[in-house]
């Protein structure tokens, strides 16, 4: 077992994990505010990848530099997905506010199926190649190519995104209002906070994060498909539960832990057991520690 191989697996795991973390943050943000598992969240991520693909394809004809195209495509995906997230909440969840908890959950699954099939019909069922837009980072040579340019880009972008999100939640007025609404919506309303706006904002932020994840993974894998959102969504959900659903640091940690576990299993045991491991973790966590690593045990009121 040489150290180089270990490092490759380690950074591969972090890369994978940071994508899970970006998506998991969307689950956890929404759960924190309205206690709903937004099962359509993985689809938003998939739509982000497709949006970037389409925009990049169009810009490809203009002769823009590749890195510029990637940035514009990513921005377009973020804006488009934010609009999707906003609309999704208004159409599928807001009318069910106050309904029994199972109803919005079923609505979420319905939205997920709808969005997958909508992309299937409007695009294609085949895997579509995603253009190579990544710049070469020469300095990676000096660290012995333990990670490729896309791994490097994913790590840097997702880290910056997560730092920005943390600052937004912790220091801005809207961030504080989001935390307040998550802790006690009625009290937040009594202070003049418009809960509907905060809920919309949560969906917008979560969807924008998923879009970033989608663009990154598309340029990493080099291809997209209408159902990439399903598995990624389930894995990210696992990451969110693992870290403690409702907790932002938990989602980040859960994503990283899951990514590393998968990477090491693939590298040292077999690639066939990657999904088994992820969902095995989900089952074990749900049985033995449903509050996750960083989650707080909730006292059920009777």
């Amino acid at each position, binding site marked *: 077992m040489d150290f180089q191989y270990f490092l490759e697996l380690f950074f591969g795991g972090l890369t994978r994990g940071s994508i899970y973390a970006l998506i998991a943050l969307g689950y956890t943000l929404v759960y924190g505010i309205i206690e709903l598992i937004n099962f359509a969240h993985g689809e938003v991520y998939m739509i982000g990848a497709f949006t970037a693909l389409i925009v990049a394809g169009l810009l490809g004809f203009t002769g823009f530099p590749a890195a510029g195209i990637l940035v514009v495509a990513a921005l377009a995906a973020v804006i488009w997905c934010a609009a999707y997230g906003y609309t999704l909440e208004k159409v599928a969840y807001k009318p069910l506010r106050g309904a029994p908890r199972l109803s919005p959950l079923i609505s979420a699954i319905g939205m997920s199926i709808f969005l997958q099939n909508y992309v299937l019909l409007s695009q294609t069922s085949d895997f579509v190649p995603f253009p190579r837009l990544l710049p070469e980072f020469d300095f990676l040579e000096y660290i012995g190519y333990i990670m490729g340019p896309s791994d490097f880009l994913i790590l840097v972008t997702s880290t910056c995104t997560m730092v920005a999100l943390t600052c937004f939640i912790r220091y801005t*007025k809207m961030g*504080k*209002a989001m*935390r*307040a609404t998550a*802790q*006690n919506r*009625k*009290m*937040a*309303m*009594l*202070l*003049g*906070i*418009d809960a509907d706006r905060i809920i919309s904002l949560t969906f917008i932020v979560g969807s924008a994060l998923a879009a970033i994840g989608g663009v990154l993974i598309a340029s990493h894998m080099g291809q997209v498909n209408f159902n990439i959102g399903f598995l990624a969504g389930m894995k990210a959900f696992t990451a969110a539960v693992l870290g403690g659903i409702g907790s932002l640091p938990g989602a980040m940690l859960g994503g990283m832990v899951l990514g590393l576990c998968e990477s090491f299993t693939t590298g040292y045991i077999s690639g066939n057991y990657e999904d088994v491991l992820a969902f095995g973790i989900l089952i074990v966590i749900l049985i033995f520690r449903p509050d996750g690593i960083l989650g707080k045990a909730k006292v059920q009121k009777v």
Partner: protein
Amino acid sequence: MLELKHVDTYYGNIQALRDVSLTVNDGEIVTLIGANGAGKSTTLMTICGINKARNGEIFWDGQPIHTLPPNTIVRLGISQVPEGRLIFPDLSVQENLDLGAFLRNDQAGIKQDVDYAFSLFPILAERRKQLGGTLSGGEQQMLAICRALMARPKLLLLDEPSLGLAPIIIRQIFDIIRKVNADGMTVFLVEQNANQALRIAHRGYVMETGSISMADQASVLLASPQIRAAYLGG
């Protein structure tokens, strides 16, 4: 001036308020006393727009507010300290206060009001960075009052501020209520602790099973044999 006219509020099919009419004039302390479950908290939540009145009207300075959303009502100058304080447990004392000023943008004024809050209850200044959930019940009540004051309301609604607190803390809190009223704030105080409430109030209403059963000067209610028997332990 706050005016409720023939207000009915329901939870689903259950009627919680029946034909409630009451007035709170500018500069007054008015108290609403009654047993547990009489509809006192519902009255406050209806004023704040959290529960909507099904029938009747609510006027604030002549303007109908029963159709407005809660954030607009806060903007018009009505703040509530709800039952159970509802401090945000995972936010610091400072952040709890900041959120009280959510609708304001005058940073200098907000800072001034934070200092004023700390001058009312110096213990909060020491606890500034602590999470709300780690405070004692009395400190949480102080924080809840200060958080409501951060909005610079014209009318302060208080729901059972004395509940579960030690007598010495209750005295401190009632002193502050009297002080903010003397400084010009109108106060509408809901209490089960009728004795304390009637002592600082100008006028009082008595609520029974969702309706107003008596209304008079606080001193008259305090002396009334009926009230003494029902709420003041004989």
